């Protein structure tokens, strides 16, 4: 067991136990701060609070026979601005938006805006750079649900000389008008949003989720939206009941999401957990997801944004997360027109999601829509309907059910054709699979370059639920299918066992180079 401190602020730190388990440790451990017990825990990634600014602490982690020590020095802090002192009531009734906004606006560098215990009704709060925004234990930033009270971010604003454009709003990969998020960050840097409190969007079928596919005024807001931001940290908080996607970093870099809970009802529409879109250097560690759409969906825009700006999502590390319920645990796409490069997912639990890894793409995403260097390793899946899905015929968008998207015939490669390059899946166990072990379907005109499957075991549920393995036309619902792979150049299958499937364990078509190693 190794102990590393992955985040420190003025009053808490987050530690990560390396090689001690996946999301949860195999054994309980106790944390001592300067010799005093700070509690017993069983999460691999754990935040310890109750510290003072600009102080040194000796941290001891005691698990069974093992003890490890690290030193922590908390950050300095200039001033604390308590939002109550700015007029916020936190009574769950009054609109506290302007009071909290005043505190944020006035906060000096290295200062902290503190939201203490209470329920604070807000529309949108706008961050500025160098602010630490703490939502304390028992504090709830509670979203007002009357859309007429929300500002709108226009999708695109043209310059006076008509030579450039300014993108503020976005919806499903296009620069469209949207309501501003509960917490909105535009062109800011060095912001921490943290604490043990909650951001509750209060969405339901009576408000934001009513007719969710219809634009009314603008597209639905997110809970946290970052547009062109740098060095952002979100740590510790619970984010729930989002009007649409929960956390949406957009064209932002050097981001950390640590020890969070992201929760939405299973049947809530478009409530993706965390969707980095055209972002670089993203770390997602120790996050628990349970929601109504994809847990993490990595994106880079639809064809206009992707082909014009060409900003892929790249250099992403996801580890020690638990994805429970939801469509895809880790999804790439469907809006990925600028590509997704260098993604590593390891040491995660996927529980009761429709799919484990899910790649959604389709003709029309464009030639810059390249997925490359994706590695999944050391994953445990349980009751994931179909663990591995690559769908190159995803029937999304208003033109998703056209012949162009659905045909399995070879079409000419043109500017609209996406590209899936190299993917590796290693050391993965899938228990209680329901539909199929894997469904990997590339385009005939541009096959998936290489898929490596190594040290993988799949076993099926006793009473599996039927469903389609992928959302594309021409596929029926079934149970207990093996590995289906079609249109792949090189497929490496090494030590892969599929126990208890009905029919062939491997159904392979149009594989140019098959390397099967027992």
């Amino acid at each position: 067991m190794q102990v590393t401190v992955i985040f420190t602020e003025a009053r808490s730190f987050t530690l990560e136990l390396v090689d001690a388990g996946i999301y949860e440790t195999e054994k309980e451990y106790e944390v001592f701060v300067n010799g005093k017990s700070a509690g017993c825990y069983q999460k691999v990634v754990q935040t310890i609070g109750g510290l003072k600014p600009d102080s040194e602490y000796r941290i001891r982690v005691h698990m069974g026979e093992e003890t490890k020590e690290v030193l922590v020095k908390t950050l300095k802090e200039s001033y604390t601005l308590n939002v109550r002192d700015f007029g916020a009531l936190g009574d769950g009734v009054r609109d506290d938006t302007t009071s909290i906004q005043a505190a944020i606006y006035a906060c000096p560098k290295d200062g902290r805006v503190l939201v203490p215990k209470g329920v604070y009704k807000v529309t949108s709060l706008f961050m500025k750079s160098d602010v630490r925004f703490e939502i304390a234990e028992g504090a709830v930033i509670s979203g007002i649900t009357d859309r007429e009270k929300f500002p709108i971010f226009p999708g695109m604003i043209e310059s006076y000389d008509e030579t450039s454009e300014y993108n503020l709003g976005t919806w499903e990969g296009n620069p469209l008008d949207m309501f501003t998020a509960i917490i909105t960050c535009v062109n800011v840097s060095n912001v921490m949003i943290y604490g043990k409190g909650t951001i509750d969007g209060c969405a339901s079928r009576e408000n934001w989720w009513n007719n969710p596919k219809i634009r009314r005024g603008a597209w639905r807001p997110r809970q946290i939206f970052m547009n062109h931001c740098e060095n952002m940290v979100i740590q510790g908080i619970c984010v729930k009941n989002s009007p649409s996607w929960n956390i949406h970093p957009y064209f932002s870099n050097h981001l950390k999401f640590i020890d969070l809970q992201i929760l939405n009802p299973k049947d809530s529409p478009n409530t993706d957990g965390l969707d980095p879109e055209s972002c670089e250097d993203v770390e997602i560690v120790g996050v628990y997801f349970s929601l109504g759409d994809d847990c993490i969906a990595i994106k880079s825009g639809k064809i206009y944004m992707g082909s014009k700006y060409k900003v892929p999502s790249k250099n992403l590390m996801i580890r020690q997360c638990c994805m429970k319920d939801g469509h895809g645990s880790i999804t790439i796409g469907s809006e990925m027109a600028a590509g997704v490069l260098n993604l590593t997912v390891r040491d995660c639990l996927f529980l009761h999601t429709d799919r484990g890894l899910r790649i959604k793409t389709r003709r029309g995403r464009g030639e810059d829509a390249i997925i490359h260097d994706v590695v999944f390793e050391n994953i445990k899946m349980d009751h994931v309907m179909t663990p591995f899905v690559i769908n190159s015929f995803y029937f999304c968008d208003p033109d998703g059910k056209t012949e162009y998207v659905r045909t399995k015939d070879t079409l000419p490669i043109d500017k609209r054709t996406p590209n899936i390059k190299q993917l590796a899946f290693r050391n993965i166990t899938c228990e209680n699979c329901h539909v199929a072990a894997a469904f990997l379907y590339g385009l005939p005109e541009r096959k998936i370059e290489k898929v490596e499957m190594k040290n993988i075991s799949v076993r099926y549920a006793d009473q599996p639920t039927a469903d389609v393995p992928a959302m594309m036309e021409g596929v029926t619902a079934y149970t207990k299918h093996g590995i289906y792979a079609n249109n792949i150049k090189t497929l490496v299958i090494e030590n892969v066992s599929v126990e208890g499937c009905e029919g062939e364990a491997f159904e392979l078509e149009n594989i140019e180079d098959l390397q099967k190693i027992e």
Partner: protein
Amino acid sequence: MVGVLDAIPMPERDRTEIVNVEYMESKYPLYMAYETKVGKKEKYQTILADFKEMRDKLFDQETGLIYDSYEVGKDAILEDGKFKIMSAGYYLMGIIDTMFEVAEEIYEQYRAYEGMFKEAIKGVLRYYNEEEGLFRKYILTAKQMDMELKEEENPIDVKGSLMVAYAIWKACYMNVLLNEKYMPIADQLFDCARKMIDEKKTAELEDFYDWILALKQETTFEPWIDENKPV
């Protein structure tokens, strides 16, 4: 905004027929409305391909003006050997009214139409004489400036001017054109047209003005209850 009942499905185009610029305005908004509201956008790609073809044939890159018609495989046609403001009017209205029916989620197509519209509006506005306030029937290019046309050979064209005014107004409304820069031009065209119609007092012009006004009315939608806005 074209209602569901007025929208019509796009027929297969006869590639041998002559494509007149009026066809862009009279039919394509209805086809697009159909595809958006009923046809599940199956023919979005086909409609865009048609517009790209019409743009390639009808938009003259050198002058920025619009031909009257074309036949596939042949050069575009200028019936009188001169560019007309009415042709520009139909072309611009055709694009902007079709754009209004496009679902904004097919954003790359929306921007493709926008590109065609902007190049054409900038083209025609190069020839706008603010002092005259309205366009004339024929737009003379630099090479045609020696032509000495009499007033009756090249009169003020109220209808063509109104069509351009409407197209600019609608583009500003949709944020396709910058309001601050372009709406004053639309306002001036509308004002001058109104004055001319009041002077001439002809039923034909009055009816045309009313038709343009009605098109403007149909464009308006409530921002908070926009079930009517194309999705």
